[in-house]
């Protein structure tokens, strides 16, 4: 259970960090003694050939799979393929719940994720950290299962459980072996906590302490976390992306149970959720289980979200922090478009050519050739709304931070003018490899589908990258770079060693 830091990458790398960091074999889990035992061990074992065929089903195949479920009202909304190797489909229940399925027969395991379209941007000033705190409370008791049962049941099945909250969404993930009634069990528990969660003062107070401790770790005692918090505060004067997903300590301490209860009512409903299942699954059986457990849940009236828009940035913004660190660190960020913008793919390629690897422009110039920095990296936020293109740079000892900022700025603009076709091809190769790597893992795949579906209502964006990267022309990429990296639009945070 974690808030995702702004430095985490969603698109090509797994997002869910482990909440019990560093342990070699921990996950998050609980036991039921009286749940759905009637079908234990009774499931048909699906033969490998069926799986192999299903991984590349077309629309007709999915429609066939739905035929035995004609009375459920489930509809097939979309089917998308990737490289003639895999396909995934989105279904909809009558209560608005979306379900995305993808078969992967490589191993007898599957990942089950539940995404809610609520993140820290849906919070209000003075009540920050609610979405993430609520995510923690979702692991507590429900009307059907007292606190502790979820973890015990999941652990007894070897389940890898986790959850994450970020600016636009929250999701819960479980990875299980495909045996016994594992799928049935997780469908039961996830549907149960979507509507039957019990929120009591004692549990809330105890978990609040854990979350405050998490903030100490991820922000207050972390140089990266402190700098990121400051950067977003100054880059988004109005928009709710301005506060950290984990929330401010003062706000956390003031949180009241009634507010959390209202939050649950406002956002945790089938019509605000997406279930994603990837792995050794069979379509008809999975949909039937989901319908039986979620079909009766009533859609809720959702709290409307209206983003606070920031005025266009007209001048450089800068903050200075003093921290017990060995070396000065600098974060520089430029406003960037949302991930579904046509300009975003060009910026992904640019990020690769600027920062990814020793041959990247900025790394080569600043770290290898001029020896003015020990590291430089770039990060493009994968947000639903306009975000940032961030650069983190660590100057070498004796290099003034003003000089390094000026140099970085100049190099970025120079790179955008001089980028070559060869560099663009390199970036395409590199991003293609990273994309294929993420398709090798059920959980990463489910994360991509859930992320794109939650933010843009289109899981197939996960499949479209390669084509988008291929279609971009060199001059267009240059133009997007020049438009993005304008000197007066910089947001800068500098952390300097304190006097200790």
């Amino acid at each position: 259970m974690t808030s995702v830091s702004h430095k985490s990458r969603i698109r090509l790398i797994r997002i869910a960090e482990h909440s019990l960091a560093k342990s070699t074999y921990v996950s998050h889990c609980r036991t039921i003694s009286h749940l759905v035992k009637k079908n234990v061990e009774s499931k048909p074992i699906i033969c490998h050939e069926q799986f192999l065929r299903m991984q590349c089903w077309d629309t007709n195949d999915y429609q066939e799979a739905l035929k035995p479920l004609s009375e459920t009202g489930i509809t097939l909304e979309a089917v998308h393929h990737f490289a003639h190797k895999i396909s995934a489909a989105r279904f909809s229940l009558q209560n608005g719940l979306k379900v995305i399925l993808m078969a992967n027969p490589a191993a007898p395991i599957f990942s089950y994720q539940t995404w809610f379209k609520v993140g820290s941007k849906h919070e209000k000033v003075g009540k920050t950290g609610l979405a993430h705190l609520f995510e923690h409370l979702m692991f507590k008791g429900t009307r059907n299962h007292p606190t502790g049962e979820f973890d015990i049941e999941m652990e007894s099945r070897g389940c890898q459980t986790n959850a994450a909250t970020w600016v636009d969404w929250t999701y819960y993930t479980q990875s299980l072996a495909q045996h016994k009634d594992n799928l049935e069990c997780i469908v039961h528990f996830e549907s149960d906590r979507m509507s039957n969660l019990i929120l009591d003062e004692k549990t809330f107070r105890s978990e609040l302490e854990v979350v405050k401790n998490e903030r100490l770790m991820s922000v207050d005692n972390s140089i990266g976390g402190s700098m990121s918090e400051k950067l977003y505060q100054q880059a988004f004067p109005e928009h709710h992306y301005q506060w950290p997903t984990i929330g401010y300590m003062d706000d956390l301490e003031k949180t009241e149970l009634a507010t959390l209860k209202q939050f649950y009512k406002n956002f945790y409903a089938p019509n605000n959720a997406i279930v994603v299942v990837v792995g050794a699954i069979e379509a008809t059986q999975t949909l039937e289980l989901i319908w039986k457990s979620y079909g009766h849940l009533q859609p809720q009236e959702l709290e409307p979200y209206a983003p606070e828009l920031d005025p266009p940035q007209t001048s450089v913004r800068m903050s200075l922090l003093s921290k017990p660190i060995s070396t000065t660190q600098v974060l520089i960020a430029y406003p960037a478009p949302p991930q579904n913008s046509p300009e975003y793919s060009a910026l992904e390629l640019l990020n690769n050519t600027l920062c990814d690897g020793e041959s990247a422009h900025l790394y080569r110039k600043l770290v290898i050739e001029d020896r003015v920095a020990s590291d430089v990296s770039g990060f493009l936020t994968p947000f639903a709304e306009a975000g940032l293109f961030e650069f983190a740079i660590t100057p070498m000892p004796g290099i003034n931070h003003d000089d390094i900022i000026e140099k970085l700025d100049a190099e970025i603009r120079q790179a955008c003018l001089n980028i070559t076709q060869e560099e663009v091809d390199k970036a395409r190769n590199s991003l293609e490899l990273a994309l294929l790597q993420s398709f090798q893992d059920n959980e990463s795949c489910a994360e991509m589908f859930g992320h794109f579906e939650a933010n843009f209502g289109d899981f197939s964006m996960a499949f479209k990258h390669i084509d988008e990267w291929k279609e971009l022309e060199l001059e267009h990429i240059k133009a997007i770079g020049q438009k993005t990296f304008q000197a007066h639009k910089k947001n800068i945070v500098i952390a300097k060693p304190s006097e200790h």
Partner: protein
Amino acid sequence: MYHCEKFKYKASTVFFIEDAKWPMVNFVITLRTGSLADPFGKAGLTRILFNMLLRGTKNLSRTHFNDRLENLGSQLDPIVGTELAILRGACLKRHLKETLSLVQEALHEPRFEEKEFEHLLIDIREELKQERDDDDALVELYLRRALFGEHPLGRSPLGEWKDLQQITLQDVKELHKQRFSQDQFLLGFSGDVSQEELTPLVQKIIDPLPETGHTLGPMPPTPETLSPEIWLIDKPERTQTQCRLISPTMSGNHPDTTAFWLGAMAFGGTFTSTFCKEVREIRGWSYTAYVQYRRYRYTPVPFVLGSAPATEQAVDCLALQADLFNPLANGKLEGIDHARQYFLGYFPFEISSAAGLIILAMRMELLGKEPDEMFALPEKIKALSDDDVRHAMQTHLHENAFRSVVVATAKDIKKPLAERFPDAKIRIFDYREDMANA
């Protein structure tokens, strides 16, 4: 499920899994010894050698080498641990031949340029400095020292500040000459590649190497027990601490390893385990609360309890860690069957990816076992009785024989620590004191 093939090519061992689903290949070129092979006073030498491999070859400068590699979109990273040193890579299938040709060049004809060596030393010094900025990395550094002292296992594979100035380019060249031999390499490939395609590529990597090289001599003994001490790593402005309890156990080859590992998991490997429940759920003291005990090692593996309480709760949390450790050392342990069920349910994930399976197969090889033995683990776990597990904990842990390492601001914690643990020797270290002239 994947099937891992193993074959010998000359004196090297090769593992491979053909998996044609996606047009890409993962590979690992593994040297059988990691930083343990670093001579006394030259900690970090293996790491420097592996970094230098990617800083230019006889025919290609550092710039040209990386341009060629990265233009293919290929990945190649050096990773040096205590027991292994690895070049880990991945590439698109269409670039496999060209990528491995560059790997071959890096392994056999590194340029070892003086200027790059000097730059690398500067880069490593910066990295070691910045490691202290991260409290979690900082506590790990001192944990190793608290347990192993001057033993080679007490040194960081990344290098030690005081040793860096002793290392010369000649040392790097010597290590390359001594260690890079056919018998010292394990190769692993998984992905869209057949054995027919692979064999000529493997030949090019292995053929130029001498058949045998220097092997690592016997390791000096490691401590079997410890006198109780508290190491306080003083770092300013901490509002949160890092608290660890560390105790020596046994080598990865000891027959009790599996039983001990299961016991460690029962004690602190899941959210409902005793340790996690006491620290996190009942008291809400720490977001992280875990036990660390790694399998598949041939060197002695420590048992570690970890948490990160706020400064106000640090002393209580350290006391709780000790109070929970001592009954465990006396064989008092619950939840063993739950941990067993957890492992049996989880095991399919350990062998679910081709790339992961290759690494596991290599680990088995280093322990002198066949790769297929990894599949026997569930049966071994099932066969262990609760008494076997308790006995293993009792045999390899000893009451009060542990050290605690804390990263905190000393002025905030020193007095309450001394009051709470009047019999313990408290040693205070400035978090950068061994980095003179930093």
